[in-house]
């Protein structure tokens, strides 16, 4: 009886190992409206689960990706004009790769200066925190401009 249970368990393990070897791809297109952020969170949660991330890493990914996407929603298109932001996720053995694309104004968030987090409250500025969090929580952030598109690629490796 015990032996038979063991065999079933081992079989399940090998099936899940096989599944792991295939990348899981998903994508989401959102309008430039920050009220859509909860839909982004659902999408990121699913991608993180596919990548095998724990809860802490999933929270960090939500934070980093929200900051990058909200930045596009707030600043890529002139005020009052509609535009989209496309988010693609590839979850695989090595972790998660997120690609964020828009057709807005050229903007490279990967070259923004760090915030001085040692300043007292009176001198702290309200801006810049989001991009800093994005850069800190991701293993790599890469930007390129292709034609009229901004393409930002965020990578997080799986450590467990």
């Amino acid at each position, binding site marked *: 009886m015990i032996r038979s249970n063991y065999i079933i368990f081992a079989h399940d393990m090998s099936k899940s190992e096989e599944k792991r070897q295939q990348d899981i791809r998903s994508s989401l297109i959102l309008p430039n409206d*920050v*009220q*859509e*952020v*909860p839909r982004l*969170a659902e999408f990121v949660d699913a991608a993180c689960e596919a990548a095998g991330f724990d*809860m*802490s890493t999933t*929270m*960090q990914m*939500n*934070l980093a990706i*929200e*900051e990058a996407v*909200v930045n596009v929603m707030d600043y890529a298109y002139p005020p009052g004009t509609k535009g989209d932001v496309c988010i693609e996720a590839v979850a695989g053995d090595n972790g998660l790769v997120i690609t964020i694309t828009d057709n807005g104004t050229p903007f490279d968030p990967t070259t923004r200066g760090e*915030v001085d*987090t*040692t*300043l*007292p*409250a*009176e001198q*702290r500025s*309200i801006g810049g*925190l*989001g991009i*800093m*969090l994005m850069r*800190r929580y991701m293993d790599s952030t890469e930007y390129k401009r292709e034609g009229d598109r901004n393409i930002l690629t965020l990578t997080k490796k799986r450590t467990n």
Partner: protein
Amino acid sequence: MKTTFKKENNQLIMAFFGRLDTAAAVQTEKDMQVLYDCDGCDIVLDCDQLEYISSSGLRLFLGLLKVAKPKGSRVCISGLSNDLRQVFNMTGFTNLFEIV
């Protein structure tokens, strides 16, 4: 995202529940107006039930501190989870607020 507010022993206490993301920050800023109107009494931001905060939420906390501190109010943050404490550390917010 939900907040509750009470005044107790001359302290203003606001508790945060759920996800304080950019979408929720709009309403939360309105909820926090009652704290901005403080007149020197201490403020407690109870984050025991806060699951998530993005920079939009952090901005609200910093904005409150900038208004309340010159009036002589102390602003305390209580109940942060380990994950959120890390966010506060990373942004230097643990140096700005009293973390209890």
